[in-house]
């Protein structure tokens, strides 16, 4: 197990390194941020000076090595437009995105697994069919459109929920600003989280349904029933536990995706998270923030995958955490 984790970590460093190089070169190729950053009234000499001030006059390899040297000291560079450390900027926005993603995933799991189970157990009932039809909508409707429709209905027409923003935040453990501790915070959180949850909700419903459907036909379920176990125990233990592995994988991967790609929802609801930061930074070619953001996200995915692998072994005793040789 320890060897497995160490090996994974080493691989991750290589991945991070390669990724930073690609992104660095990619953003460099798009163009010079000074062209859009500087006030148009500035003359040529001012422009040159601004370019030099940000180190953009140096060749690409030199800029990259300066960046690498900084990374060794835990410094991912300073945002061009905010003049604050890029990593600090991302960490400052991270609680908002994590809170949104957690809530969305919670909604998806709490609703998705029971609904999927129901649809799997009673595939021909009215409710089962309705659930499956509904899940198609969850898949196929574009997020930004659903988000705007939610706003139109619940904010503009009914006036029940605020249309944008994060609402008041309280410090959790005196450290992390969160909004789920107050009623007003929840009112702000509900719509964007639901919007973000929809796709995963649909995914989990379908995954649970087909899993349950298959498991019901297995011999061990028939045997459990023949043994005279209660229905609740058959479904809760024998069926659910066995279909959980693919579900945990998907939850893990999708959680990473929720964090990384909450961008659309964050834009529509003006939610001050990391995704919005990324979009804003791409808009002005704020390279330090773009690179730092992607590094953080890749790290995130690596950690989640590791966690999923470890969870597997807990759920399924047959899975051993050893890397095959070669």
């Amino acid at each position, binding site marked *: 197990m320890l060897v497995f984790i160490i090996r994974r970590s080493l691989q991750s460093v290589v991945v991070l390194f390669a990724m930073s190089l690609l992104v660095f070169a990619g953003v460099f190729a*798009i163009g010079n941020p000074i062209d859009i950053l500087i006030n148009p*009234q500035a003359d040529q000499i001012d422009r040159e000076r601004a370019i030099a001030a940000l180190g953009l006059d140096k060749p690409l390899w030199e800029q990259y090595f300066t960046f690498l040297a900084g990374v060794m000291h835990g410094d991912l560079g300073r945002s061009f437009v905010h003049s604050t450390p890029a990593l600090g900027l991302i960490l400052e926005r991270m609680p908002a995105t994590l809170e949104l993603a957690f809530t969305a995933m919670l909604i998806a799991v709490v609703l998705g697994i029971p609904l999927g189970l129901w649809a799997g157990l009673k595939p021909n009932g009215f409710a089962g069919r309705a659930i499956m039809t509904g899940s198609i909508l969850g898949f196929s409707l574009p997020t930004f459109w659903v988000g705007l429709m939610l*706003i139109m209905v619940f*904010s503009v027409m009914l006036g029940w929920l605020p249309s944008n923003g994060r609402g008041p935040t309280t410090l959790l453990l005196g450290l992390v600003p969160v909004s789920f501790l107050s009623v007003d915070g929840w009112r702000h959180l509900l719509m964007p989280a639901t919007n973000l949850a929809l796709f995963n909700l649909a995914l989990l419903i379908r995954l649970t349904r087909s899993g349950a459907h298959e498991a019901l036909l297995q011999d061990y379920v028939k045997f459990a029933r023949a043994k005279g176990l209660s229905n609740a125990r058959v479904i809760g233990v024998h069926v659910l536990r066995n279909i959980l592995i693919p579900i945990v994988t998907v939850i893990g991967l999708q959680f990473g995706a929720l964090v990384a790609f909450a961008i659309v929802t964050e*834009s529509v*609801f003006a939610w001050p998270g990391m995704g919005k930061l990324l979009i804003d930074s791409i808009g002005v070619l704020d390279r330090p923030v773009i690179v730092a953001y992607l590094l953080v996200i890749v790290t995130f995915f690596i950690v989640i995958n590791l966690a999923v692998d470890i969870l597997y072994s807990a759920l399924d005793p047959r899975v051993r955490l050893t890397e095959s040789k070669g």
Partner: protein
Amino acid sequence: MRNSRFRRALAAGLAAAALAASVVALQASAQELRIAVAADVTSIDPHFFNLFPNNNIAEHIFDKLVQMDPDSKIIPGLATSWKTVDDRTWEFKLRKGVKFTDGTELTAEDVVFSLDRVPNVPNSPGPFSAYTKAIIAKEIVDPYTIRFRYAAPYPLAPNDLSTIYIVSKKAATGAATEDFNSGKVAIGSGRYRLVKYTSGDRVDLVRNDGYWGEKSPWEKVTFKIIKNESARVAALLSGDVDAIEQPPTADLARIKGDPKFTVTSKISHRVIYFNFDHLQRVSPFVTDKAGKPLDRNPLLDVRVRRAISKAINRQAIADRVMEGQAIPSGQLVSEKLFGHVPGLKADAYDVEGAKKLLAEAGYPDGFSITIHGPSGRYVNDEKIVQAVAQMVSRIGITAKVETAPMGPYSGRAAKQEFSFHMVGWGASTGEASSPLRSLLATFNRDKGLGAVNWGRYSNVKVDYLIEQALQQVNDENRSVMLQNATKLAMEDLGIMPIHFQFTIWATKKNVAYTPRTDEYTLAFQFRPVKG
């Protein structure tokens, strides 16, 4: 029976509660103003980054020596009067008794400190130094009198200084940009004080009751950053904010049709125009109809440029593409700005005349061209480029359209990679000298002229007039020189103006805005009205 009585009681109770709530809301609304703005505020440091949304916030917290009224005319700010001592020296008299919010009194020391700080803010991606570097010496005559010396006669001192925010020397000495963002040293003498700046989300302000001038009607102001335009409109419609800037033109009909809201707009200092490729070369995006590059750049011929200009129905663009939120333009600055040429109109829409000019220039069958434009930078920018492409196709010029976000787009445009492309220019100093020196003067690094002359237009007569005007302290003479330079450049179609766009604000009925030419959304220019 009992049930219905209960219902009636409930209804009455609810009505009373609603009434109470609305009274409370009304009281609150007279004190508090929530505005949704369209772009991200990146810093509170007023000298770090000359960026529109940053300046928009700085306008509330800090004062300047002189300021601009809603028509971009210069009016007193921290300076009560100013004059030229000689051609090269300006003297500003400071207002007495102005207090910064840390309690210190404003003196000439603070002004000198602020001007010295401008070119020295570390890591600035867009400094304000263009407005301070002409000053070669600053002399404090007494605590309320300050003189600036220039190397050459310099008429634009007040215009330049209308962009420089004055910070408290005591608070800001040794302070970094981050200290402003955290609010620690965000000490100004303006109408508001910073409560909290949350990057990417909001800026909270509270009224400075010690302000020297007319006080703002709003005690608390919140600027919410909502970049997505549909979300911004939804925030207004749902009542989450009291006012928004830049509602999309497509939504205007809906907002205007709702009696709960008001739409205000005003012609902006921003002109939307096209650059032509003026270089002697095979122009990169001009080909014959078969797609082969033309060995001669047809855009060098003024008849071809004129033909394109005549082919464009500017009124139709203003009416349909812009939904009435623009007026056609044949020059650089709008009517109320300094250097406007009375009576200089855009070329009339004339397809036949355009075809004739093309034929005279040797292109009776036209040619092919790719038109480039930015996306999401100016109001309806992509749609304007598409409309222009369709219009020139009527005179035989086959046009393709390519658009890109401003980042990569401006980089390519600045390197002359396009043949014919759209840009916008805001004359933020309120004068025609601003577009003339940056867009139409010949590109010259050492003189600092033509920095954004992306088409590389060059005309010695225009250059001469611009350089003269930039040193002409007499306003009347300068105005004539700027007008003449504009006329020459427009005869040449050095660039091709399309229209002046309007800046639009939408507010709740009980809030009114005094719209501004400089596009700023200033809390203190909103006022409560009977809705």
